[in-house]
């Protein structure tokens, strides 16, 4: 098998890289949708771990849990899009740094 020849650490590194990419996106992007995508990246980083180590430990738990997380991610996006829509309706923009009335 190919997978078995790949050390577990690599998966960790990969997922870490993806996670950081997502984080970077969150910190830099002002567009709400980009923000959303970055979050998705981070979630998927977690999924990589789960799947990989599910194989590593030889249990299905991780993989099954991954299915849940994907579903939840989808739900989250749905809510997110909804909120972004009303955001656009009220502020005529999807810039997350735009609305700053609630502060201090």
């Amino acid at each position: 098998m190919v997978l078995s020849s790949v050390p577990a650490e690599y998966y960790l590194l990969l997922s870490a890289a993806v996670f950081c990419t997502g984080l970077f996106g969150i910190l830099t992007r002002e567009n709400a949708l980009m923000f959303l995508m970055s979050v998705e990246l981070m979630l998927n980083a977690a999924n990589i771990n789960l799947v990989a180590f599910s194989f590593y430990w030889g249990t299905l738990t991780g993989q099954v849990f991954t299915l849940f997380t994907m579903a939840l991610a989808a739900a989250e996006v749905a809510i997110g899009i909804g909120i972004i829509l009303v955001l656009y309706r009220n502020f005529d923009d999807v810039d997350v740094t735009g609305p700053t009335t609630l502060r201090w």
Partner: protein
Amino acid sequence: MVTVAGIYAYAPAIAALPLASFLVALFAGRWLPKEGALAGILATGGSLVLSAVTLVELVLTGEGYDERLYTFVAPAETFDLGFGVLIDPLSAAMLVIVSLIAFLVHVFSLGYMNDEGEPGLPRYYAGLGLFSFSMLAFVFASNLLMAFVFFELVGLCSWLLIGHWYREAAPPSAAKKAFLVTRFGDYFFLVGLVGVLATFGTARFAGEGGFPAGPTPVSALIHAATMVAAGVFLLARMYGFYALLPTVLAIIAFTGGFTALFAASMAVVKDEIKQVLAYSTISQYGYMMLALGAGGYVAAFFHLTTHAVFKALLFLGAGSVIIAMHHEEDMWLMGGLKEEMRVTYLTFVAGSLALAGIFPFAGFWSKDEVLFETLVHGLGANPLLLGGYLLGLSAVFVTGFYTLRMVMLTFHGDPRTDAAADPHGVGWNVKFPLAVLGVLATVGGYLNPAPLAKLTGAEVDFLHRYLDGPASEELLTSAHHYGDLTHEWAGYTAGSVAGGETATMLGGAGLSLALALAGAGTAFVLYRGPDPDRHTEALGDLRTVLVSNYYQDEYQVWLAEGLTLRTAIAADTFDQGVIDGAVDAVSSVSLFSGDRLRRLQTGVVTNYAALIALSVLLGLAAFAVVGGWL
């Protein structure tokens, strides 16, 4: 503890009667005839009778009385906090004197207050009643605590009476000052009281329970403390206690001598008749302290007695003059009153001669004995006493001077004002007390004519025998017991100049009499004639010093306002600024930091994300280091 049934059981009533009159005057006064005066007269008259009877009883049975009346709180620890009655020669005699004077003052007040239509009479008589009550209870107090309690009440009464005319500005202020000064003394008194109680567990004056010996540091503190406050009577009352410390005795004596001269010198230049008398009183107290310090217990009490009589006489006489003068007190506005007011004049002169110590008036005998005791013990034991003696001796001259000056200015020469020309007459209620006291002032000296006793060997030194009588034996308050104490602890022994005791005595007597006459004579020469002029200017700057009482008032004012008030204000500033400032600072600082903290919430969601990420990283880094990952 001696207990005698019978008459002594009624001793408390001596004080209780005036207390009753106080209550009557206070609550029912305004509906009574004379607004409480009669109640007061009856009460004090009753006290007078009772105390006279008590005195007789004491003399006849020769037994004293020392009974606990009331327990303040149960002596759970070693203290006994209680009130009691102590009847021994000293207190018995003193009771008579006090109640007599109280009685006469009440009578006199009828003329002085009622007839003048003063306001607030019930308040006045209530105060007077309370005063008599406190004074009498103070006299027969059986222990220091009780003495302190009633001493304080006396202070309260003087505050009330001095401030009687509270609607005017001056009297309240005077009352405040007087009370504050006594309060200052009371502080030391209290320290002494607490010290005595806490050290000896009891503060009884008489009997085995009395003050044990032992000059510990504490009892030194107590000596110092009580000495400041205790009046002459209290000094005598606690004589057994002071007798234990020679230095204290000598200091008392010297202070006494000094006071005698110091106060007398101020009396010389005063123009208000009452002020002259006031300062002469202080000076006479000096003599009594001198005697006590010099171990002349009997002499001191003798002088106390005679002085009480003739000074009361002089004050009442002054009062009668003041009535006559329509409440004018300045002697320079009087003059020539002797024609108009015979009784007052004669009695007043009797009192004055007694005060000046002219033979054969009461003052001569007592003052002479005081000086004699001082002299012999000074020669025999402690040279410091000689200093006291000289001071006292020189005071004799001054006394003679100011006394006669007072008489001359008031009664002799021509009237210097219309008021003096036709004085307002005074009634029986003024004359009667004057008459009584006048007689006593004249003959009072024969209570204890020690010189006669010594010369003739006749046992006429009644007072001495009385004070030494059996009644005081068991109570350990007898004169010779004190004599032994002073001899034993202070090493007092009688000495004499060449010619032996008698010569010393006669010499001393002659000397003092001569000085008194000299003083009186000087005054007579200076102030005789129809219109005497003020010679005090001759004194120059000294006069200013004397008139302003050696700047004592300035000094006290400085103490009160310059020092204490300044400190207080400084303390207040400090309190508001620093202490309270710190409190407020804490709150304002925390509010400020709170305001800073909420700025963290910028409102930009990206910043939030950044901060979250940052803090997660920080946490990771920290634990990476701590946990040694990687």
